């Protein structure tokens, strides 16, 4: 039973929250604005920037400098590939832990999470050397494997928490109805867990898309995703604000738009299933 809230109180709340929200969002908004300005205007004072004319020239310049779509494709392949590969391995594992819990289940889960605590830098050298010897350095395949392994504990953990909300009786009913294990997972569990799986997929695509340790250290030219594409702007092109802004917008726009459209699933995914 909600209590009546005075309009002035509500207006005050909206103003404060809106202002703070705007401050958080401002850097993103600002680069969008800068990306449509000429290089000359982009370094002027904020007021002058807002009143100056608009142009698309920076986007053209960015695309001319290095093939944006190649990096974009790499990012998509790496993030989507690693997420779905991870899902393939995580669904059965999470099924086991959620529906056939044993004494060790909690320990196994904690151990899996603890591999996530392994600092990447601690194993950078061996992975670099192994990849060099296998010839998968600077390939999408290599990054898919690394990012899948990086995020596997998180995928398993999230699926586990979602699966646990599904009553075991429904799976037992499927078993009584003559479903094999494969049927049970395919026709009953997975469709029921779609919202949870969607959250997991979204979050992991974002984590993989933005991952900037392995993608920077294991790629050079061929497999470089957008993280590396943008890192190449650190100097001296960083001084060309309009181009840097255009490149930044192109790097973050896909994930930003996807994130906003799937906000509901994502909010749930962002909490890693650990908070209700």
């Amino acid at each position, binding site marked *: 039973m909600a209590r009546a809230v005075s309009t002035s109180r*509500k207006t005050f*709340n909206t103003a404060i929250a*809106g202002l703070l*929200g705007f401050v*958080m*969002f401002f*850097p*993103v908004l*600002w*680069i969008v604005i*800068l990306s449509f300005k000429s290089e000359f205007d982009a370094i002027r004072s*904020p007021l002058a920037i807002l009143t100056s004319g608009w142009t698309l020239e920076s986007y053209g310049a960015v695309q001319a400098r290095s093939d944006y779509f190649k990096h974009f494709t790499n990012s998509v392949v790496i993030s989507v590939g690693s997420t779905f590969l991870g899902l393939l*391995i995580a669904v*059965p*594992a999470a099924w*086991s*832990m959620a529906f*056939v819990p*044993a004494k060790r289940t909690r320990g*196994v889960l904690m151990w*899996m*999470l*603890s591999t996530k*605590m392994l*600092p*990447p*830098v*601690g*194993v*950078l*050298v*061996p*992975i670099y050397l*192994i990849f060099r010897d296998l010839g998968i350095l600077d390939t999408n395949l290599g990054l898919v494997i690394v990012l899948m*392994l990086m995020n*596997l*504990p998180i995928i398993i953990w999230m699926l586990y928490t979602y699966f646990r909300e599904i009553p075991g009786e429904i799976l037992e009913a499927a078993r009584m109805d003559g479903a094999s*294990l494969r049927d049970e997972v395919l026709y009953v569990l997975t469709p029921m867990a779609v919202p949870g799986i969607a959250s997991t997929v979204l979050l992991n695509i*974002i984590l993989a898309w*933005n991952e*900037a*340790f392995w993608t*920077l250290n294991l790629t050079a030219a061929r497999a470089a995703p957008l*993280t590396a594409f*943008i*890192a190449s702007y*650190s100097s001296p092109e*960083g001084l060309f604000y309009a181009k*840097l802004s255009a490149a930044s917008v192109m*790097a*973050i726009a896909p994930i*930003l738009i996807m*994130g906003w459209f799937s906000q509901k699933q994502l*909010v749930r995914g*962002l*909490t*890693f299933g*650990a*908070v*209700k």
Partner: protein
Amino acid sequence: MATKASRSAARLMISPAVILLLGWMLIPLGMTLYFSFLRYNLIIPGNHPFVGWENYHWFVTDPSFNAAMINTLLLVGGVLLITVLGGIGFALLLDQPMWGQGVIRIMVIAPFFVMPTVSALVWKNMFMNPVNGFFGHIAHGLGLPPIDFFSQIPLLSIVLIVSWQWLPFATLILFTALQSLDQEQLEAAEMDGARFGSRFAFIVLPHLARAITVVILIQTIFLLSIFAEILVTTNGGPGTATTNLTYLIYVSSLLQYDVGMGSAGGVIAIILANIVAIFLMRMIGKNLDA
């Protein structure tokens, strides 16, 4: 509750994950450990003699090691402090009745989607640049001397950038937790005469304890390996002012090609991470069981 058949199926279905993660953990770890005892530099050809603890000795006695340890600690601690406090504040604010809450929430979440390399570059150039940056222009407009962020307060600048990236995450988790708080509990407390301050301290905060734990746990995992933000802004400088452990190891192994030294650093990083991990696991083990 299950049959033998389902238990063996369960073992079978969990084994790919366990084997992969075990391999992912043990093989590189074993190699790192092995390399850490060798004199092994990629640009010096020849064999790699066993040198005992030499790499560790040089790594730990290097003055930049101490700096890196302190910087890592300040970086993680600083960001955690800002994001947890800021997140609680934001969550409480968003929980108030208002118009357009959805839009505001979208604005608050946005930084989370921005990849670290982009946010670091954008902050470094478009905002923190003392001449052409946004803050520089503002300072100029107000007649104040502009701050040269990356030479005057380099570490704090990175803390601010990273906090901007992680504040949405903390806010969202805490806000979600706050929404699950039973309103009747608060009303009961109000009937019992608790004022806003005591309601927050005795009901809201304990309710958020679990969510705060999650925030700290997950952020710590990611913050310990902050890398891209340093790489594209300061390269660890000036001097070692913004070199954290991750970056220091990167410098030894990939910039100086000293695999032995880098591996020794890696082993140390792993040991430290494990100490933190044990501590955190204890904490969540307790808080997540509920």
